[in-house]
């Protein structure tokens, strides 16, 4: 056998072996890829399930909090005023002086009018319609007017950029975050001033709520009053935003909510 033939046979044998190795590689890659893909799909399903669970928990927490707020409002405000009206009217029956009697009745009428206004305000602040009808900026403005009129707090609002809709559900969540922050400022921070800033940029939306209250240590807040703050974070996460808190004792509290690339998000959804 000539050396050329020998070489050819060697090339054929070696080449075939190489080809077979290539086949083994292709098949191994198929198995490897399938295993990776299955792992990826499983992981995605687990993450989705965990996220759904978190959303459910947050929704329940939000609902609980809203019901608490209504209950508190009915007990502390409306209930008290109506009790006073009842007392007023009860004593009016025993008064013989007609002028004094009329004064009692007038004062009771004023109190009832106040209760009606409070109930209307409560209904407005809880209603979803306000957001869907007027949008986030107008809804916040109405809430600010209500608080400023009460004299409990002085609120200022700044809007930068061109306000545009972020989607009803997102705006509602942002409005609830604002209400939660306002509630915290009134109840715990003993603040006198509150500044709200809404920035509509090309790529993102920012909501900043800053008060001049007593502030707190974030470590203590985590233990004592963590649920309200955690709620803000969870609510922000629901719409794909991030919430950050900056505070220290005596330095007030600033809550920043950042919603990135909101224009690319489905406008009416939460995802």
């Amino acid at each position, binding site marked *: 056998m000539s050396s050329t033939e020998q070489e050819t*046979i060697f*090339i*054929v*044998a070696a080449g075939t072996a190489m*080809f*077979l190795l290539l086949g083994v590689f292709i*098949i191994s890659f198929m198995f490897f890829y399938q295993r990776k893909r299955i792992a990826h799909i*499983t992981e995605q399903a687990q993450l989705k399930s965990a996220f759904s669970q978190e959303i459910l928990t947050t929704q329940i927490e939000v609902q609980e909090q809203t019901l608490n707020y209504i209950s508190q409002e009915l007990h502390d405000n409306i209930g008290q005023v109506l009790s006073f009206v009842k007392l007023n009217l009860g004593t009016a029956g025993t008064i013989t002086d007609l002028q004094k009697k009329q004064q009692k009745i007038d004062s009771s009428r004023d109190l009832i009018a106040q209760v009606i206004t409070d109930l209307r305000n409560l209904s407005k602040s809880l209603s979803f319609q306000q957001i869907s009808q007027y949008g986030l900026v107008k809804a916040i403005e109405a809430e600010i007017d209500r608080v400023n009129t009460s004299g409990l707090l002085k609120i200022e609002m700044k809007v930068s950029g061109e306000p545009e809709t972020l989607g009803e559900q997102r705006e509602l969540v942002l409005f609830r975050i604002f209400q939660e922050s306002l509630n915290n400022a009134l109840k715990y921070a003993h603040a006198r001033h509150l500044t709200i800033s809404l920035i509509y940029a090309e790529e993102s939306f920012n909501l900043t709520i800053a008060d001049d209250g007593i502030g707190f240590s974030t470590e203590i807040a985590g233990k004592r009053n963590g649920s309200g703050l955690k709620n803000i974070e969870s609510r922000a996460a629901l719409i794909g935003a991030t919430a950050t808190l900056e505070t220290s004792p005596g330095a007030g509290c600033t809550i920043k909510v950042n919603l990135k690339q909101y224009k690319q998000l489905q406008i009416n959804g939460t995802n």
Partner: protein
Amino acid sequence: MKSYLYLLLYFVALVTCVARYRSFKQLRYKLFVPLLVAIVLYEYSYMRKWLFINNSTLWSANIEITMEYVFYCFFIVSSFRSPKERQGFSIAAWAIFIFTIIDILFIQGIARLCNIAIVLQYALLIVMVCRFFYGQLKMFDGEASLLRHPDFWVNTGLLFFSLSEFLFFSAFSLAYTPSRYFSILFDVITAVANITLYSCLIIAFLCHPRSRKLSLS
């Protein structure tokens, strides 16, 4: 001895195919029965030396290899979902089939093996199998394992069969010289190719679930 082993392998594949025939839902699997019958008959006739004309069986090898090529082309093309792909590969398969006839009749002659056409046939089969695998990669949904997928086994067997015979047929001109090493190479490569292909075919047939008769009683 070697021929007996091959015949046994083909026969086992045929028996498995017939046993699972009822569970085959696609025509391409049902057509394995006539193909395997033809292969068993061919191998038996070869053993009995019924196919020798002028001391050569290459004419029958041309027919047998081309028949297998046509069948496997049909098998793979019918598994593609895209009509464009089906059309493209069908045109290529027909072109090579026509070239095979030209090779047999006008280039190599009937008495010699149409190895140029065979190399092209295997090249096309390798490309088609790789395309099938690529399609599978995109379709993984995390449910069925590849090991339970009959098409995967047929294509795997075909890939190894084509890869192992490709270079051998490229250098087939050496077969016409008195080379002892070439016949050893032929034996080894044919053994590897056939054992791989038919083992994979048997597994593919077994991957089809056994059909059950429903009874109303």
